[in-house]
């Protein structure tokens, strides 16, 4: 095969792989790196189930080529938790039962992470718009929106604590 040698960072770890020029990042993550959290829901960028963050930018990994992440930083749902400590978004998804079948959930978590990285205090409308690239067929979105809102509040609280801790 005419392989492309790629060196990148995934969830903080350096990863080296060889892929076909036409292979998508989604295929690379799932089939070469064993990171199956991102899902193929449509393969055309319409459903968001394959969402990952590349250099701080939310993308559909089905629309990005594996070769394109050379030298970049990729963040997936698998990197959300800190070891056994869940990310506040994951905690709140649990607490609110913001998922049902779970196939779209990794994409929602990643999209919500991208939103909160950018806007720590979104309104409900902003949450709904930010998540409007992700389809969910089970939940009707209600609990997802509430979970993201609760996680944002949690994150604001802990960043305040950190900030005041530093002042001392």
């Amino acid at each position, binding site marked *: 095969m005419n392989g492309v040698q790629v060196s990148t960072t995934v969830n903080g770890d350096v990863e080296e792989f060889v892929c076909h020029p036409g292979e998508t990042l989604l295929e690379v993550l799932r089939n070469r790196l064993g990171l*199956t959290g991102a899902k193929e829901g449509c393969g055309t960028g319409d459903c968001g189930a394959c969402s990952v963050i590349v250099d701080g930018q939310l993308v559909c990994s089905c629309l990005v080529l594996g070769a394109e992440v050379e030298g970049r930083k990729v963040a997936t*749902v698998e990197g959300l938790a800190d070891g056994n400590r869940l990310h506040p978004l*994951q905690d709140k998804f649990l607490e609110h*039962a913001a*998922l049902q*079948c779970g196939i779209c959930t990794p994409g929602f978590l990643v999209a919500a992470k991208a939103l909160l990285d950018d806007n720590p205090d979104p309104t409900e409308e902003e949450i709904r718009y930010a*998540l409007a690239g992700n389809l969910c067929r*089970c939940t009707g979105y209600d609990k997802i929106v509430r979970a993201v809102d609760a996680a944002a509040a949690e994150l604001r609280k802990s960043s305040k604590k950190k900030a005041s801790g530093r002042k001392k």
Partner: protein
Amino acid sequence: MKFGVGQPVPRLEDPRLITGSGRFTDDVNLPDQLYMAIARSPYPHGSIASIDTDAAEAAAGVVAVYTAADIESLGGMPCRAVLKDRQGNPCFIPKRPLLAEGRVRFVGEPVAAVVARTRTEARDAAELVLLEVEDLPAVVDLNAAAAAEATVLHEAHGSNLAIHYENGDEAAWEAAAAAAAHRVQVSLVNNRVAPSPLEPRAAVGHYANGTFTLYNPSQGAFAQQGVLARAIFDEPLESIRVISGETGGGFGIRGEVHPEAALTLFASRALGAPVKWHGDRSEMFLSDSHGRDNLTRADLALDESGRALGVRIETLANLGAYCSAVGPFVPTMAGGRVVGTVYRLPALYHSVRCLYTNTMPVAAYRGAGRPEACYVMERLMDEAARQLGIGRDEIRRRNFIPSSAMPFVNHSGVSISSGEFEATMDLALERADWAGFERRRRRSEGLGRLRGIGLGYYVESSGGGPEEEARVRIHPDGSAEVIVGTYSHGQGHETAFAQILSDTFGIEFDKIRFIQGDTAFVKFGGGTGGSRSSQMGGIAVKRAGEGVIEQGRAVAAELLQSEPGRVTYEAAVYRLDDASAQVSLADVARAAETAQFGGEGLAETHRYDRGAGTYTFPNGAHVAEVEIDPDTGVLHICRYTAVDDCGRVINPLLAAGQVHGGVVQGLGQALLENVVYDTDGQLLTGSFLDYAMPFADAMPDVDVSFNEVLDPNNELGVKGIGEGGACGAPPALVNAALHALASRGVTAIDMPLTPEKLWRAANGLSLQERAG
């Protein structure tokens, strides 16, 4: 009990799903697996002249190409609907082959299966399969399919009519209609929808050592095993193991065995390697079963005071090109069991003509017939209220079946056992501030917008197959294992059933291990569908647990050197009634595994039989409030209120989630979703760009509450909650939109209420004529 029934317990399923470690079928990869792709018919209707597979076979990486001629040993996909018309003629059910035989009958019908070393090679080669057909006219429109001169899809049958189902008494209806002070007629479209679970179908088939193993998403592995073994492969049940790990949504259609799953098994046996197939989204639009698709005319006869005297409901129902597993059952009996829904109707006549067309087969979709039945009655009630000048709540009040009349036997002979329809509606009206609507309307009017509020009352008949099984075992460490025949594909049974067992045993929640979806363990079960799992699986689990406690009591009595009658059980401890001695559940389980006590351990299988012909009746009142911008046609859902009676709520978190999901699917159907075939039979809605599913930005917060009226016929008092939202939302939304448009003289509009349609309606333009 902290984790018991009624508590908002977080889901046991979720830790794996929120970390990306859920194992769905596409996450399953077996060593040396090959990949399958399907060549599908691009023609809606034609006689197959030839299928040339030479180029595909010669393509890089290709291992095998199969057409119908290669799989003659396999049976077709069965339909389990058993229906007869009034003259005793059975429903005409043609063979539905795995790969097209002789004719192709819809765009997307599988024609050939190509197996190659990689997915890309398989898909590329599938495009090289050359299908030549002699074109036949495509029959797409339901009225055209019913016409005498229509092209017939299944020639030998002579017409496209599978069955003309009738129920009720036409003469009684005629008499009621003749005596009526008022007659109200509606003509309705229940649009075809694509159920679209977010997980595209996938399958991994593996044949080794005389056994087939199939990994695939489903709504119950046992049912799939039965279809594959009996109808398709003609092999003993034990020779096929079906494993459904996580399933990414079902909504009815994952209860079907689709052809690709069987083909991976066939190819694996032929090639001696595992074979994987993973469909893409466009294939799903073409080849996942569709839902709904009815044309209905209904006629309601009322007396002077707005009390119904009778109803006539006549429907043309689209089956698609073949019968799905449930095909003609959905528009006839599934909906027909609650025909007339929650209203007293002295006379009723119900007629359904099920027709074949050159489209993808239609199967069960969330509610399966009940949403259609409810839509008809709720539109009739609103139209009657409008014509008679009676309040829309008032006309329902005058016609509801009162609780005092229950059990109430309806025109289908079904006994509606419980419900407080008026009280439930009143709760919804109160929470929705129905009385304060006029104030809000005026405010909208001031902004140039049309505001409306609408009501949808639904009732279901739930339960599905009357038998369900559960097996509960207590391990020597005191932990419990439960095997169920139902199958959670998002509902959260792992949690709900653990709550029931936690209540039954008084053991800790995290000591309960849940097994489903693998026929190596599940030896019987109807799967999940028709809102049946809490009432069927839940009771089987509870009774199996109680059986285990009784078994344990006998063992404990011996260990305590006493009589079973003197042994009490509480919180995982057996005690003598005078509290002089005790033994733990774990010790009893350990003892039960010794030869002294037969060595079988502490385990009980319970098969619960609800009784044929009995159901539960989840019901509820949904209120939608909308605002329409007449300049753009954009509809905004300002407020949505759901009050559901699903009997006892096992877990309010899970129950609310079911309501949310059902409501949004119903709103999707009412507002956006529509499967469109053009007049030539080509599918125009083959992606999420063309087929609009609701996103978060356009959906409302849903105010969810429950009026728990316990079911009188099962000890948990549960009724089911899976489908109510999909029943209540379409009529609530359409009635609200029509209420908003009333000032513009609009009295009828068909789903989906797209902005263009609403804009045309609001501005007095024809609804038929398309822009551009």
